[in-house]
């Protein structure tokens, strides 16, 4: 995978993790809570799903370990590519949503 271009579409888990980390370093449990509130409870993420996705995202260069010092927890943050990918996916989703909205008759 190229490390310079945003690759979309994303899985919901990856998208929500990117969203949760936007502008803010967070640790694992914090990410889960953020995902839950961002998705209004629709996306439930447990530790397995979270770290499975995080591993892949680190490998893809979207996320890296953050700088927050905390002996009990590890923090994560977005890379530049992660930010770009989040924007690209947001754009894509809103275009899709616009198409859907139109087809659902609420132009």
């Amino acid at each position, binding site marked *: 995978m190229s490390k310079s271009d945003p690759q979309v579409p994303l899985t919901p888990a990856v998208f929500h993790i990117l969203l949760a980390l936007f502008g803010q370093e967070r640790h694992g*449990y914090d990410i889960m809570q953020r995902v839950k509130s961002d998705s*209004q409870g629709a996306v439930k993420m*447990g530790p397995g*799903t979270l770290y499975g996705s995080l591993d892949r995202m680190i490998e893809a260069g979207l996320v890296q370990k953050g700088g927050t010092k905390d002996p009990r927890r590890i923090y994560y943050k977005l890379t530049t590519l992660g*930010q770009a990918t989040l924007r690209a996916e947001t754009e894509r989703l809103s275009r899709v949503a616009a198409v859907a909205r139109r087809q659902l008759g609420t*132009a």
Partner: protein
Amino acid sequence: MAQTSQNTRSRSLAIYAFLLRIYAPDFLARHRAEMLQNFEDLETASSSTAALWLLIGEDLMRSLISRKIPKSLWGHAAPIVVVLTVVLGIWRAFAYDIVPVGDPEAVGFSSSRLERIAVWQQAQVDAGAFTGAVAAIARNGKVAYLRAVGFRDRAKTVPLQTDAIFWIASMTKPVVSVAAMMLVEDGKLDLASPVHRYLPELKNMMVGVEATDSTSGQTRLVLEPQKHPMTVEDLLRHTSGLVYFDHGNTAVHKLYRESGLYDKGLARDGTLQDFVYRLARLPLAHQPGEVWEYGHSADVLGRVIEVASGERLDQFLDNRVFKPLGMVDTGFWVPPEKVSRLVDPPAGAAIFPDRDVTRPTTLFSGGGGLVSTASDYLRFCQMLLNGGELDGTRILSPATVHRMTTNALPSGVRFTGEGDAYVGPLGGSTWGLGFAIRSDAAWSALPGSVGSFTWGGLWGTYFWVDPAERLVAVQMIQVAPGRSGPYTRAFRNLAYGAFLIPGQIPGQGAPATAPAAIDQAALAAFEGTYRFASSSARDRQERREFGGLGIEVAMQDGLIKVLFPIRGTPAARAGVMANDVITYVDDEPTKGMTLGQALEKMRGPVDTTVRLKIARKGQDGPIELSIARAAIRPQAAGSDLQVAVKHGKLQVEANGALPVLDFEKGAPITVVPTSRNEFVVDGGEHTRLAFLGDGTDKATGLVLDPGPWEITGQRIN
């Protein structure tokens, strides 16, 4: 108490650690410590053990499946089997443990007002109305209230627990009705068929009519043949003519009393078949299909189920209803190991000699034989509310549940017997297939939405389901027959009285997030000028499909007014001018339309035609124009918005007119950030703007609902 929960906690953590070790020795190994920490966090925050383990189980399964396991079939199957076994084992241990949500507010209840239910019940216990009560209320599928108050025994020595077992009597009828409809869905039972197709012994039942002799003035019983044979549907909706001995005083009711039907016919060592034979010797009280009167219909329906399914009613209910729904304490008798949970009969209820539910029975009364708990029956109610399904197990189709819980009575049906206070015009309700249904919006004696459905038991047990409010509720008490009315009504009033503002259920309506307190520095990060442009990323197909006229319009004093035609568009070419008022679109008056509706009328596929009627100042008659739609770029393109902090508040102002965004120069809008990274401008009817900060010093804008276009803004200084 604290010690106990600490022990439980470390045990759960150990189980989780064990699961992680066996299920993926290498996978996620480097996150192991983090995952255990997260598990502890989750457990602390979770109000229900069952919910926690369901989340964990699902999470393990999902992460396992998403992991690409190579090699053999065993490579695929082994970990899944291990996880399934262990997780399901844990899940099973907690599956039936209905635990109140920690936060009733989350499902639209005021917890302090729910508290009043227990206070009220305690007052009844103190006054001697009943020895104890269990109430359960769930909304949106979450239990908001589950409490026991008072005692299990009349001597008041054993405190009542929420798993107490009650004789639910006529709350058996809805269960048996559901069972019958399952057979209908199986194709094994036909509602329109005469009952005698299944029970030939009922074929020649006569209808008893009271006739008054004109000379002597004496009334006597005259027997008539059935005009229409009693159908299975008549059994489900109590229009069979089968009655109860004590719900009326006609000659037929007297015959019922003299026959000893109730004590001998329903003896626990009898059989349903014998009971039906006894009934067959009595006349019907009404012509089938003509009169609603509460009675033995559901008992006969139970026998029909046995014949149609080939199974005993208790077995059929066990296999098809109770086990699938996890109703673990519901049945026709209380086995010895559960007798300690059975609630004493009420004082003054000894008129039914054969109601000793601690003895096994061979007669399965579909009209009133079951015992159950509040939690079990709540699960049954939730299944109905869910349209026939609970926790992934479907027992009925939504269409069937809808059919059962909407009116099934033919027009012109009469309501007689004691039940007419609850069913029929007096009770603001009608009857479906097994339930009384609130039908009259104006009937105000009890709170509840039209379409809510209910029934209760002889000793005061009561449930209702309010689909409009996503509400199910059960109250279990044991009081003497005929005494329960005030308690069921009070319970309903208390439950609805505990609602937060109706319709504002978090997660269902508008998001109810409180604006976060944002410091000045964070506000300042949004400051700047943003230039908005419509996206060029739309493909041609979309443009061809969607077009407009090329005017910017605004709603002024209820009129659709043209602000200006956009240069080079069909509207400009057709001569539409600023300040024109559009009075008709395609012969439809715009008067009364919202701006959004008018816009929707004018927009449409490219190359289609729209007819406008326009009122113009200085013109006498209306101007009529026919204009072909074309792809239009919105005028937000190239428009600027100024975001600034003024008097400690964030303000958004257009540099010029920005009609698409509903901004006007000189009319700044104050906005409240929803987080450190985001604020949203709710700009009227069809447009909202969001500004997102990315934590550096950049912020970008986005029009959230711009209709057919894509509009984004970038800070330019």
